C-alpha cells in the first residue's frame, strides 16, 4: 500500500516536472469536450427560456380565467345544488328549501386542478 502511494507520488512529480506538450489529438479531444459543454449549456438555457415563456403564457391565461371566476361573469351551463347536512339530516339555509340552487364558475386553465366558485341562482 505504502509502495503504491510512493509510486503514485513519483509519477505525479514526474508529470509536474515534465516540459512535454500535448499532442494534436489531445487538443482536438479538448475542443470536442468544450464544444459539447457549450452546446449543452446553450440547450439548457434555451429549454429554460421555453419553460419560462410557456409558464408565463399559462399564468396569463390562468389569471384571466381567475378574474372571470372572481367577477362571476361566465357560469357553466350546468348548475347544481348546495345542501347543509349533518349525516342524513338536512338543515335549510334559506327558509322553505332544503337545497340552494347555485351556478358554478370554473377556471380549468391549469389542466388537472379545476378552480371553482359558485353563487346562489337568483330565485
Amino acid at each position, binding site marked *: 500500500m505504502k509502495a503504491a502511494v510512493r509510486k503514485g507520488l513519483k509519477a505525479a512529480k514526474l508529470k509536474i516536472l515534465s*516540459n512535454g506538450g500535448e499532442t494534436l489529438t489531445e487538443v482536438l479531444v479538448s475542443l470536442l469536450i468544450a464544444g459539447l*459543454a457549450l452546446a449543452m449549456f446553450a440547450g439548457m438555457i434555451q429549454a429554460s427560456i421555453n419553460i419560462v415563456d410557456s409558464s408565463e403564457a399559462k399564468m396569463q391565461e390562468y389569471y384571466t380565467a381567475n378574474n372571470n371566476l372572481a367577477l362571476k361573469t361566465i357560469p357553466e351551463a350546468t348548475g*347544481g345544488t348546495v*345542501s347543509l347536512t349533518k349525516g342524513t339530516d338536512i338543515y335549510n339555509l334559506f327558509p322553505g328549501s332544503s337545497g340552494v340552487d347555485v351556478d358554478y364558475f370554473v377556471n380549468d386553465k391549469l389542466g388537472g386542478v379545476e378552480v371553482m366558485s359558485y353563487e346562489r341562482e337568483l330565485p
Partner: protein
Amino acid sequence: MKLNTAAKKIKSERGASITFALLIFLVCAVVGSIVLSAATASAGRLNKLAESDRRYYSVSSAAELIVEALDGKEVVISGDRDDVTTTVTTYKVNADGSVEVDGPSVVTGPVSGTPGNVSLTQTGDADSLLCLATKKLVFGNNNQAASNDYFWDSTYSPGALVTNNDVISDLELSHQRGADTLSELQVDIDVKITEKRLHLILKNHASADEAVYTIELFFTPAYNTIISKSSNTQTAIDNTLMPAKFKETVTLTETYTKTTTVYWSLSEIKKGQ
C-alpha cells in the same frame, strides 16, 4: 519564491487543454442545471397555486352563501299562555218573577294554564340553520317542556343559558351537480356560540396532510320581546236549582302571546390558513 514559480509556469511548455475543457464542461453542466431546475420549479408551482386557489374559492363561496342566508334575517320565537278567571254568581228568582243577586259572587283566579309549546320559525320554516342556532342560544339544552316554562319564567333572558364555546353542530356544505358530488368543493362548518354570538368556522374538507383555508363568521343577535293579550268571555247557566235559584258562571279567558324576535347581523369576519 512565488515569482520564481510564476516565471517557471510562463516558460513551461506543458499543455493543459483537457483540464480546461473538463473545467468548462463542469461549469456549464452546473450552471445549466441550476438554470434549468429553477425554471422547472417555477413551472411546478402553478399546480400548487391552483390547489390553493381552489381552497380559497370553495370556502369563500360558501361564506358568501352563508352570509346571504343569515345576515339581516329574523327568527320569531312565539308561545301562548292562558289565564282563566271564573266568576260564579247565584241569582234568586222572586215570586213576582224578578231576579236578584243572591249573595256575593265567587271569583276564582286568574289561574294560569300550562303554557303552549314555544315555536321558533324563520319565515314560517322551523328547520333552518338560523332556527337551530337561535334555539340553542335562547333555550340552551332545554327540552320542549322546559323551554315552554322558561319562556314564561321571570328569569327569561335570551342568551343567558348558553356558555362560551357551546357547540351547536358540525355541519357540511355539500354539492350535487347531476351525478357529480364535487367533493373538492365540500366545506366543513363548525357551528358554535362564542361570546353570545353565533360563530361559524368554515374550512375546506381536507385530509390530514392537506392545507386548510378557514373563514370564520360571527353573527350578533338583537332581541325584541313583546307580549300581547286577547280576551274571551263565556257564560254558562246552571238551572239545577230552578225555579228558586240559578247559577251563572262567567269564564274569562285571557290569552297572552309572547313573541321574541331575534334579528341576526354579521358582525365580524376572520380569514386564515
